[in-house]
């Protein structure tokens, strides 16, 4: 069956938001914060960052206004959908004490219905990567499951990439192929942008139908593919994921790790900005009268000293070993564990590393035994 394709104008996007809210969704979009793009509640496309984009580089990020009518010319800020699906802090249980005994209070996560407009293909792929870890592995996480069940994704294909993007290598983009309810291509050749809309799910199809938008011209699908291919070709950074396992294995004792460790501060920014880094820790909180205790789950980072602590000491004491673990996991071992890379090529870890350490350049160095050409 041929996917139904529509030609949308700005007003149709507003109808989409309105219809989603009527269906009980909280609607979110990329909104310009003071210093960075963030995901925020959105009720009107007028709140989208019209004309704004950002410049990216290792340890460099600046919002820039280049004018024009583009609503989705923005590039990824530090936040991804991970913040909503796998929240930075969540209470997982509560217990009430009764002498030396205690009882566990029912504390199921509340289901939230959230719709996101304007998700970049890498972040769509990141949701699929999190699904494989938190939903479709041996066990499933009920908090993630509840948030994931209420997720509606309107993706936006990328026809231009940031300097730090390498989604063509991970095959996550620049054209979103799967994992969305609706995907949009913002066409800027006219006076006002028009949107080529395709549905990825039945829910997406039903919603598009309701907007009353006309069908899209048949050549738009090819034009989208061409524009995305052009964007992919322009990406400077590349990672050969198929060789990652071998590269990581044969470089276990490479002096390159020492060189990285001289720059890496083990701050964990890369892991917090990463849309797929899922590691968590648990915290106990008790009330002052010691009658109730809560257990909280919080984001953790494999760069912390205590991450690998067992009786007698931490397994990974040095910064070098922690970076080696992180790069090895993202690029190579995730493939062995979950069948696909843990890196979607969004470039956030490069942009938000305060030392500007570039995972693609370091991988190239390890692979070739010499600095990358970039």
């Amino acid at each position: 069956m041929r996917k139904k394709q529509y030609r949308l104008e700005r007003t149709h996007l507003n109808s989409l938001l309105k219809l989603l809210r009527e269906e009980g969704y909280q609607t979110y979009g990329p909104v310009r914060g003071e210093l960075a793009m963030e995901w925020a509640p959105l009720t009107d496309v007028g709140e989208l960052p019209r004309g704004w984009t950002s410049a990216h580089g290792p340890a460099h990020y600046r919002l820039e206004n280049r004018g024009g009518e583009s609503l989705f010319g923005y590039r990824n800020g530090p936040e991804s959908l991970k913040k909503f699906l796998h929240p930075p802090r969540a209470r997982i249980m509560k217990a009430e004490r009764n002498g030396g005994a205690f009882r566990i209070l029912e504390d199921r996560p509340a289901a939230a219905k959230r719709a996101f407009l304007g998700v970049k293909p890498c972040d769509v792929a990141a949701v699929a990567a999190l699904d494989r870890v938190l939903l479709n592995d041996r066990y499933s996480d009920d908090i993630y499951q509840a948030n994931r069940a209420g997720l509606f994704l309107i993706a936006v294909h990328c026809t231009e990439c940031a300097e730090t993007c390498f989604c063509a290598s991970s095959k996550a983009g620049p054209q979103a192929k799967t994992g969305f309810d609706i995907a949009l291509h913002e066409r800027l050749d006219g006076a006002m942008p028009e949107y080529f809309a395709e549905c990825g799910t039945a829910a997406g199809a039903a919603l598009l139908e309701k907007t009353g938008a006309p069908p899209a011209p048949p050549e738009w699908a090819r034009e989208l593919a061409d524009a995305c291919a052009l964007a992919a070709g322009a990406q400077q950074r590349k990672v050969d994921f198929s060789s990652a396992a071998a590269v990581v294995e044969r470089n276990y004792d490479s002096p390159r790790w020492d060189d990285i460790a001289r720059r890496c501060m083990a701050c964990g920014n890369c892991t917090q900005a990463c849309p797929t880094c899922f590691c968590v820790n648990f915290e106990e909180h008790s009330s002052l009268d010691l009658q109730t205790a809560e257990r909280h789950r919080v984001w953790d980072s494999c760069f912390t000293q205590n991450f690998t602590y067992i009786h007698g000491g931490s397994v990974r004491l040095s910064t070098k070993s922690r970076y080696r673990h992180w790069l090895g996991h993202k690029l190579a071992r995730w493939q062995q564990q979950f069948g696909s890379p843990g890196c979607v090529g969004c470039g956030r870890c490069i942009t938000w590393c305060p030392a500007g350490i570039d995972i693609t350049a370091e991988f190239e160095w390890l692979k070739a035994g010499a600095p990358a050409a970039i």
Partner: protein
Amino acid sequence: MSLALETPAAAERSVMEPVAARLASVAKETHDTFTLNLEPPEGDPVAVFQPGQFSMLYVPGVGELPISISGDPERREQLTYTIRSVGQVTYQLVTRRPGDTIGIRGPFGTAWPMKESRGKSVLIVAGGIGLAPLRPAIYHILRHRGDYNRLVVLYGGRSPRDLLYKKEFAAWGMLPDTQALATVDYGGVSWRGYVGVVTTLFRHVRMQPKETVAMLCGPEIMMRYASRELETRGIPPEQIHLSMERNMKCAVGFCGHCQMGPYFVCKDGPVFPYTSMKPYMDLYEL
């Protein structure tokens, strides 16, 4: 929020939600190690385990820890844990009083290859508290003695006062077709037994290596040398099994802490065949 039953039925429980279990008894094993017997709700799947598996034990307001089950797998009414008090949570666990409640999740992880070992001899090599996760395997063999050939238990401890299950251990040594030998790093004047690392006991073992399955648990360095030596003594590497330890927060593959190379120790282990672990055991800070 409503008050739920003391323990919600297993089917509606999230994998992160513990079952409240009553502490039936606490027995002092050594100066720092205690054995806890817990009574989980009757018929709850938390009590159905294979030798080598572990549970997450929880003290509200203090924390949660992975602890291997050290009791008899066929005694479903009780769950037994042997815990060395070395930190905040273990201290709180061993100082609970009978009648107190402890949270349990599990059981988790892989088990000793009891079925695959049928018809063969079993060589158990334990170091320190590492004997605890191996005891259910010993119980299983003793209950199904005809299914297995010889049973050899080699046990290394720091000193005589650190040795666990002393009476039981001596009784195992008296059984037919069974050897139970202990060695210590430091014996003191009254110790009449072996002194030295556990690998020094290998020369006393009487069994056919090709027909032997080895099960190892103890400090990583002990397992590294023991597995290497067992291989040189002719036990095929796929018949050597190790129980690994890593920092573990969730036991279900969500927290990421226990990764060791491509493995999550919580769900791919803790019991691994030596063939899987061999490439990673010598890597410092993996």
